[in-house]
């Protein structure tokens, strides 16, 4: 047994486990004690969160909170090898916690099967020394970035598209995510892994980079200023960029306009229908006409039952005149992106219309039909 600087005991087995850390002059016993005392929140246990959490748990972070409200789907396994075929349908946060407890039983791991929201973000973030962003939506990313900056908690950001990725360290004093990208683009301009595609090893690399940045921050080694790493996975390059605080930043600039997290929560807008409200609306006295904007092959995979018509998005511009004006329309697609674009076009022409936020996938999740997700 060894007496550590803060009078806690590190059992011999634990010391042996971290022998390769202890051999590093930059880590040593003091560094290992720091890691054991650290509380890290990983939001999103997908392509980024899995590898990041694996390295954080292996490194001996004393308290790890893994938050994700999704369940393991078949399409995840191509890039989230922490999960297996036997985990399909189970909550990611719980499966990941079980796996990582088996990897390191000496640390505390908490599974949180929850989505990050305007109402829980501040409390969650404040309970941790560092937050790692592994989410898969821009709304969640801005919410988290706002929450971390307002709470004074460092954030290690990671995001990707196809072969490209971004990893950034945002120290508590700034610069922040909004110094880079002041406001999110509208939902119709955004695509995600499901629509854009992703090669599994890309998030593997990015999540590992995030873990490295997080560990260095907690150990107090390496650059302490805001930094961005730009990965081009196809070219095989990583370009570092020093970040500067943007004077006009809406969150941490000279005259900030954002004082609470999630200024863009309204992105779904009043014209968005949440999937949990769908059944009540369809059963109501004046049910809207469902307009399926997906292609024919997608209709073979899953359908929302109810009176409706099929107008593929690829033919939307030329055929939108076929839509009735005297009845409310409810547009839907796979993920709510095509329907958001179509909604914009129809609103300019005075149609009565809403769209299903998150598309049929969100509705399938809501109604427990995970096996039909695509």
């Amino acid at each position, binding site marked *: 047994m060894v007496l550590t600087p803060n009078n806690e005991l590190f059992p011999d087995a634990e010391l042996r486990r971290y022998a390769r850390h202890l051999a590093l002059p930059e880590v040593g016993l003091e560094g290992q004690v720091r890691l054991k005392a650290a509380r890290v929140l990983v939001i999103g246990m997908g*392509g980024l969160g899995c590898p990041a959490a694996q390295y954080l748990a292996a490194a001996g972070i004393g308290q790890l909170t893994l938050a994700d409200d999704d369940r393991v789907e078949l399409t995840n396994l191509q890039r989230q090898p922490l999960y297996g075929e036997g985990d399909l349908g189970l909550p990611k946060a719980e499966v990941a916690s079980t796996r990582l407890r088996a990897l390191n039983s000496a640390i505390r791991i908490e599974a949180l099967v929850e989505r990050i929201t305007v109402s829980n973000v501040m409390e969650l973030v404040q309970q941790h020394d560092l937050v790692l962003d592994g989410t898969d939506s*821009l709304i969640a990313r801005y919410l988290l970035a706002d929450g971390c900056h307002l709470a004074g908690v460092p954030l290690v950001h990671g995001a*990707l*598209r196809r072969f*490209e990725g971004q990893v950034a360290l945002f120290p508590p004093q700034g610069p922040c995510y909004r110094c880079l990208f002041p406001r999110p683009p509208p939902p119709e*301009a955004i695509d995600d892994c499901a629509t854009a595609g992703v090669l599994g090893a890309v998030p593997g690399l990015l999540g590992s980079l995030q873990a490295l940045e997080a560990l260095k921050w907690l150990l107090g080694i390496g650059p302490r200023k805001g930094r*961005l790493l730009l990965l081009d996975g196809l070219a095989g390059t990583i370009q570092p*960029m*020093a970040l500067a605080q943007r004077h006009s930043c809406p969150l941490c600039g000279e005259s900030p306009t954002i004082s609470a997290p999630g200024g863009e929560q309204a992105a779904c807008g009043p014209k968005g229908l949440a999937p949990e409200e769908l059944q009540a609306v369809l059963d109501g006295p004046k049910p809207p006409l469902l307009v399926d904007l997906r292609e024919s092959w997608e209709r073979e995979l899953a359908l929302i039952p109810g009176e409706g018509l099929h107008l593929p998005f690829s033919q939307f511009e030329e055929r939108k005149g076929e839509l009735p004006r005297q009845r409310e329309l409810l547009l839907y697609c796979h993920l709510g992106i095509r329907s958001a674009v179509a909604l914009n076009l129809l609103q300019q022409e005075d149609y009565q219309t809403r769209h299903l936020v998150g598309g049929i996938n969100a509705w399938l999740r809501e109604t427990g039909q995970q096996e039909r997700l695509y």
Partner: protein
Amino acid sequence: MRLTIRPFAQLQERLGTKVLELELPPGATVAVLLELLVAEHPVLAPFRESLLLARGTEMLEPGNALVNNDVVALYPPFSGG
């Protein structure tokens, strides 16, 4: 003065090219560049407030002055995880 613009990720797809050449008045700032880019390429309009501009490894702010032959990279935020 002449500038080279290098869009990344979905901006390349929206613009249909990996590189753009642009003529700007001498001493123009990053804000002017952005205005002109969006005016000439309306497909960039949704990203007007969502872009990171960089010269080499230097992050640019709206007030920064540009010089002849600058190469400016345009990065959008990524959502995927």
